[in-house]
């Protein structure tokens, strides 16, 4: 699947900082989208768009921390790099506790920011790949009939065919046919892989 190029969302109420960040990121070939407030970001954010965020902790209206909480509530997976002033370390700590990817103190070395952005983009790509994988498994599992779901559930619990046949009140031959169908529809190459896929679905990662 071809992913669109990642966007770096820069959210800062200071126009000078915002524009300078866009210029800096452009100089290393990264596409930035600048927004002046948390509200502006929420209005324009598309969860399907890969990327990461560079977010000012301290903003009038909704603060960076509040925006992070909003995103967490929505189950967003976008990594957030906070930028803070000198006296904002307690806020940065709080942000990290709520799952921020990293934070940087203003003013920063350009390489520090760019390195963190690269790492954040890598993580975003991994999260998206895991989500896509999850979706593919989900789609396959959704094609199973109710009976096949019953067989799947017994298979993942390691029940032998004889026990399954007795529990489901069918012949062992019928169980074998259902088993074959489950393996075929899910595309699992082995029972071990099937179990992993079933576990992956149960763990259901956050949705963007």
């Amino acid at each position, binding site marked *: 699947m071809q992913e669109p190029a990642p966007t770096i969302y820069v959210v800062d109420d200071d126009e000078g900082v915002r524009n*300078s960040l866009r*210029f*800096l990121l452009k*100089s290393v070939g990264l596409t930035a989208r600048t927004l002046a407030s948390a509200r502006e970001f929420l209005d324009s954010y598309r969860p399907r768009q890969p990327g990461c965020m560079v977010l000012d902790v301290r903003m009038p209206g909704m603060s960076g921390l509040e925006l992070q909480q909003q995103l967490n509530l929505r189950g967003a997976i976008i990594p957030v790099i906070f930028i803070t002033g*000198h006296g904002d370390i307690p806020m940065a700590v709080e942000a990290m506790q709520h799952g921020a990817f990293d934070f940087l103190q*203003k*003013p*920063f070395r350009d390489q520090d920011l760019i390195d963190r952005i690269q790492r954040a983009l890598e993580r975003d790509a991994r999260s998206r790949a895991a989500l896509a994988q999850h979706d593919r498994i989900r789609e396959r599992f959704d094609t199973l009939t109710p009976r096949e779901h019953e067989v799947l559930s017994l298979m993942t619990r390691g029940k032998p065919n004889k026990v399954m046949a007795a529990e489901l009140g069918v012949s062992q031959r019928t169980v074998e046919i259902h088993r074959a169908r489950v393996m075929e529809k899910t595309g699992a190459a082995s029972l071990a892989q099937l179990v992993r896929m079933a576990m992956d679905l149960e763990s259901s990662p956050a949705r963007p």
Partner: protein
Amino acid sequence: MSPNPDTSGALAPVGVAPAATLHGRLLQVSRMATIGEMAAGVAHELNQPLTAIANYAQACGRLLGRADTDPAELRHALAEITLQAARAAEIIRRLRALARSQQSARSAVSINALIRELIELVEGDARLHGVQLSLALADDLPEVLVDAAQIQHVILNFVRNSLEALAARPSGSGRVHIGSGLSPLGEVEVAVSDNGPGPTAEAMSRLFDPFFSTKESGTGMGLAISNTIARLHGGSVGYRPSRPEGACFYILLPPQSGA
């Protein structure tokens, strides 16, 4: 240039500070606290243009390392750097102006104007405490030659004390009254009274002592500093009971014409 070292071997007197110097220092402490808070705000404000400048400059460094860079891009970044530097300079200029205004700058003002300006500040506070604020300002008062910020600091202190004294009363029943007028001796008076419990007999004798406080979180500086400010202006602060209940703190200032 440092002054010539004292070669006579005599020591400058140190250690014992007369009461007036102590109060002068207290006043300085209170000002420094305000300046400290302000400095934090200024630091944050200055950090923004500095960050922008650093970003542009570092981007220019990267662009210069590339063969295909359009000089127009560099020019744009340099113009932005100039703009942000001017913005930083403007912040510093404002800070300087503010620091100058912090140095006791006295001017002839109407005390009522000072009070009215302050009311905007304390109204919200009073509402928050569920306290009714009332005002009775006398007409035709002579002007006073004062450092407006310092005098407002004193009145604010009185009002804050009153609000805190009223905290124990059921919300809505507390009242704070600010009045201005002429004292029998012709001084300009601002009095802040409340219907709180008033100071205890024990507290009464130490009201204006530095470090004396009846509040758990109090520094004991409020009234001591108010006292110092009043004296520096040739005036005084005092306490009298309020009728029918409560406390009244006042500041007396010499009228300008009499100075």
